[in-house]
């Protein structure tokens, strides 16, 4: 039970903590658990209704498959850690030692004062436009899985899974076991590009077993490499998808297309706080790489004092990397706030030191894995050339490819067409235009989420410290 004190004045709740963690996925939960063990007061903010993030999303309403044992363990451990979870709450703005957020459930604003902050904001799917991609029935790959876990029936649904990344196999596996009628799994990367990556999977028994499991369950659905979608067809809803391998084209009748082109890190809050980003691959330019990530040292320290980052925002590297990084960042954040996690009541200092040394060593392996992942699933050039002139690129404001392709950048696009000014705040069209046109992402400005005016008016003193 945490002893965080909160006061409420009208619609504003003011609270203080030692370590503030943003995100209650695997990395955030590990950071919070570790920091709380040292005696620090820990507050975790997440916009979902419960802990788990995306990968350990709660399944509800009779959806297939409860969470894994590993997920249940992590969530139970977090619940018992003493860290407080502020759920259904979105971050609006942040600065040195303070952060404002909006509690969507209670409808009030929150001002948090913190000593150290850990950003565990995860990743989102990269979406690329192609003709027909706005039809109902075209989902992200993780998107369809998330909706299925939230109660969308998929039994008997004719689904095509396409796009890129290891997520495709996980999604295909989930859908198959939920009784969907899988019509094919299509990875855009060529087999030649992906083969070196399999070496990393082979070297890790956990990943090998996972991959073998997916291979077995999707054995009938024919994973094909070097294929990508060229068009989705239908009058009011999706009816068919046309795929290509660069030479032939073929059309598959279906009711759902689960299509995402791998992941991009959620770096908005880190950028707002002034953290430097970098690319994992020196050959990529920072400006045009949608996977540019937060620069951190082994302990998760960013280039801004008191700001730590763990998990996917530091590079897409998966679950093991996220938990290890979260643990280290939680310890470092607690130490920064004045709490020594090596003297917690749970373990004697030398044991704790050895544990951290082991985790730090693992970080190197995870970094190598992240680079290999990025190389294996790099996007082929043809994916930039799928749009017809009337293909919508900005879904929020219905801005087409024809209106955008000759503009010089995201700022000009905003001024001329409203592209990027919709409620997604450029989170969908930003990475897409970065890939299509090489546009540098615009600067990040508060509020970080669409919020009612009342939420913003409630915290005038926070903005005065800018």
């Amino acid at each position, binding site marked *: 039970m945490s002893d965080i004190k909160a006061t409420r004045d009208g619609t504003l709740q003011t609270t203080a903590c030692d370590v503030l963690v943003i995100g209650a996925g695997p990395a955030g939960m590990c950071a919070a658990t570790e920091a709380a063990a040292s005696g620090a007061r820990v507050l975790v903010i997440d*916009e*979902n*209704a419960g802990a788990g993030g*995306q990968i350990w999303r709660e399944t*509800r*309403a*009779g959806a297939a498959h409860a969470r894994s044992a590993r997920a249940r363990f992590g969530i139970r451990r977090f619940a018992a850690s003493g860290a407080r979870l502020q759920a*259904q709450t979105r971050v609006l703005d942040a600065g040195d030692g303070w952060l404002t957020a909006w509690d969507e459930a209670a409808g009030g604003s929150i001002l948090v004062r913190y000593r150290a902050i850990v950003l565990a904001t995860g990743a*989102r*799917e990269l*979406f690329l436009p192609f003709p027909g991609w*706005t039809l*109902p*029935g*075209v*989902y*992200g790959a*993780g*998107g*369809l*899985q*998330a*909706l*299925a876990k*939230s*109660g*969308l*029936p998929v039994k008997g649904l004719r689904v095509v899974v396409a796009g890129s990344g290891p997520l495709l196999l996980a999604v295909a596996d989930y859908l198959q076991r939920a009784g969907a009628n899988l019509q094919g799994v299509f990875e855009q990367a060529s087999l030649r590009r992906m083969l070196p990556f399999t070496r990393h999977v082979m070297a890790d028994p956990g990943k090998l077993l996972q991959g073998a499991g997916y291979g077995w369950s999707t054995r009938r659905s024919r994973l094909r490499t070097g294929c990508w979608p060229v068009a989705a067809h239908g009058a*009011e*809803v999706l009816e068919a998808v046309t795929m290509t391998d660069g030479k032939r084209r073929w059309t598959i009748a279906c009711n759902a297309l689960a299509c995402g082109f791998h992941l991009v890190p959620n770096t908005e809050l880190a950028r707002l706080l002034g953290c430097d980003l970098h690319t994992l691959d020196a050959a990529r330019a920072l400006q045009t790489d949608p996977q540019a990530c937060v620069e951190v040292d082994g302990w998760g320290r960013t280039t801004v004092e008191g700001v730590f980052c763990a998990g996917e925002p530091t590079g897409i590297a998966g679950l093991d990397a996220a938990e290890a990084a979260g643990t280290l960042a939680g310890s470092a954040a607690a130490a920064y706030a004045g709490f020594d996690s090596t003297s917690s009541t749970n373990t004697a200092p030398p044991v704790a030191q050895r544990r951290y040394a082991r985790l730090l060593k693992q970080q190197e392996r995870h970094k190598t894995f992240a680079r290999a992942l990025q190389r294996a699933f790099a996007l082929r050039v043809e994916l930039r050339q799928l749009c017809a002139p009337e293909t*919508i690129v900005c*879904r*929020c*404001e*219905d801005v087409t490819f024809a209106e955008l392709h000759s503009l010089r950048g995201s700022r000009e696009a905003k001024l001329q067409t409203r592209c990027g000014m*919709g*409620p*997604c705040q450029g*989170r*969908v069209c930003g990475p897409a235009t970065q890939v299509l046109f090489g546009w540098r992402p615009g600067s990040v400005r508060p509020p970080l989420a*669409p919020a009612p005016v009342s939420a913003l008016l409630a915290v005038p003193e926070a903005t005065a410290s800018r």
Partner: protein
Amino acid sequence: MTEQEIVIYVDGRAIAVRPGTAVAAAMLAHGMPNRISRSGQPRAALCGMGICYECRAAVNGVAHQRTCMLACTPGMEIATQ
């Protein structure tokens, strides 16, 4: 409607759903788009995790709610935007 289901209203139309189902999922399960775009296209949830806002609808009078992040409650009233 089975014992386990509750009733919500989408543009006045009553639909039966299992408690805890996300509003976006309930609408899609009944063949309804989540919203109509600026140029009049029917749209449905894309990302399923609160990023894309394609699922946005007015819920119980409050506009711009991300229906993929909201669980259905008995008597909930949804108006497509």
